[in-house]
């Protein structure tokens, strides 16, 4: 945890090529990370924190008007795509929480999945089995389980209301 924090500060300092409010940015990054519902024990914690921290830093530069001097050409180009996502501010208020009809749609999608994909996803999501356990249970490889889960998530994305 402290190690992660120190790594983050070092990373931000590297990117800025100068001292600054890196500590402050890291603090905010942790707050947003937790608010978005992420888990520090999860394997994706480290990359998410790094990217969230980096985005907060870029946003600060932008509001400070120093951005054009600091950012590389391709970063500026990216800005044309609109404001950067930092982390969902309130994930469950509007966007995160699937509304009732969306839930029904999601249930229909899950039901319509190919049997093995559906079984793998149900065991992953509701039984919290590891891929290894699911693989043993369905008689497929761990990589195949990952493919099934990815496919289920891809189908579910289509059921989203937006």
């Amino acid at each position: 945890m402290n190690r992660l924090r120190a790594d983050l500060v070092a990373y931000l300092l590297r990117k800025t090529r100068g001292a600054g409010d890196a500590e402050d940015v890291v603090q905010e990054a942790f707050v947003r990370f937790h608010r978005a519902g992420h888990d520090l024990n999860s394997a994706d914690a480290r990359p998410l924190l790094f990217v969230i921290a980096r985005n907060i830093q870029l946003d600060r530069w932008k509001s400070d008007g120093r951005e054009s001097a600091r950012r590389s050409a391709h970063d500026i180009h990216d800005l044309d795509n609109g404001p950067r996502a930092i982390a969902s501010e309130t994930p469950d208020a509007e966007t995160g929480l699937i509304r009732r009809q969306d839930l029904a749609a999601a249930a229909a999608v899950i039901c319509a999945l190919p049997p093995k994909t559906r079984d793998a996803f149900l065991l992953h999501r509701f039984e919290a089995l590891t891929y290894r356990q699911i693989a043993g249970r369905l008689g497929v490889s761990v990589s195949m389980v990952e493919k099934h889960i990815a496919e289920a998530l891809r189908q579910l994305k289509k059921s989203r209301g937006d």
Partner: protein
Amino acid sequence: MLERLNILIAAGPRTAEAWLARMARPGAGAREQAGLMAWLEADPDHLRQYEQAKADQAALEPLRGAFAGDLAALRRTERKTAVTRRPLFAGGLAMAAVAAAVVLVPMLNGAEQGRLYEAAPGRITDIALDDGSRVTLDAGSAIRVKMADDARRATLERGAAYFEVAHNTARPFQVAVGDRRVIVTGTRFVTALTGDGAQISLLQGRVAVGTRDVTAKAALDGALTLSPGERADFQPGKPGIRKTAADVEIATAWRKRRLVFQDAPLSAVVAAVARYSDHPLILADPVLGRTRVTVVLPLEGEDALEDRMAALLPIRIVQDQDGRRLIRAE
């Protein structure tokens, strides 16, 4: 730019959903983290997409009930297919499939045998029996339960089980552990079959440990009576039973998601850890198994329990060609 190039070269997942599935893999480590970070940095919208996919998955929680039937059917089907498919597979493979299955299957195997309840490796499982008694099965453990008019009978097939027996003097409750019978009327106790013996530890009430069935005449003759806080130790199939003070904390520690061993033989530690492992654990040297150790192993953590055991004890684990893990002295 560099990040984009890296993504093209690495040929990792390309979408938020694929990344989410990748990061849930058991071995996801530094390589996957670097890949995810490169992907997140490649497009300002990727973070939003990833968080959305994650939130969508979390939002499915209310559907748990809707799929409860499917999940139960899945458990039953799995059990059935594992059994019916058995002749099609080579024996060893079929056994592996059964062992890896996560099953809690009340299954009627003919009235003689009763219902089999199994907890999968790594999964501590609570069971409510028809008579109101409650059983907590340690990971990888199994009991068979047969309810009759004259008596309630359970058999500890393997592992460890904690019993809270609903009071009913007219219908005594009996737990067979090896060739011994634990006869109770209403109580809380723990039974365990370890690598080299069996234990019964009493928390509350009264139990008698004998060799005769509860309905047999003079069933309690020569039986050993335990009071709360006492423990009986014996070797199944061999005469002799020893009464000692039970360390209830230790006997029930697994219910609190940790394993506690105090001056215990390494063989007992390995037998317990094996119940939480996906692979067979084998002591390479029987002498090593007699080494006495004291250790507290949290059941939950990032790495495998066997690796945590190896880190805490003077042992190392080597994998052989058959996927078995051999335990050697360090």
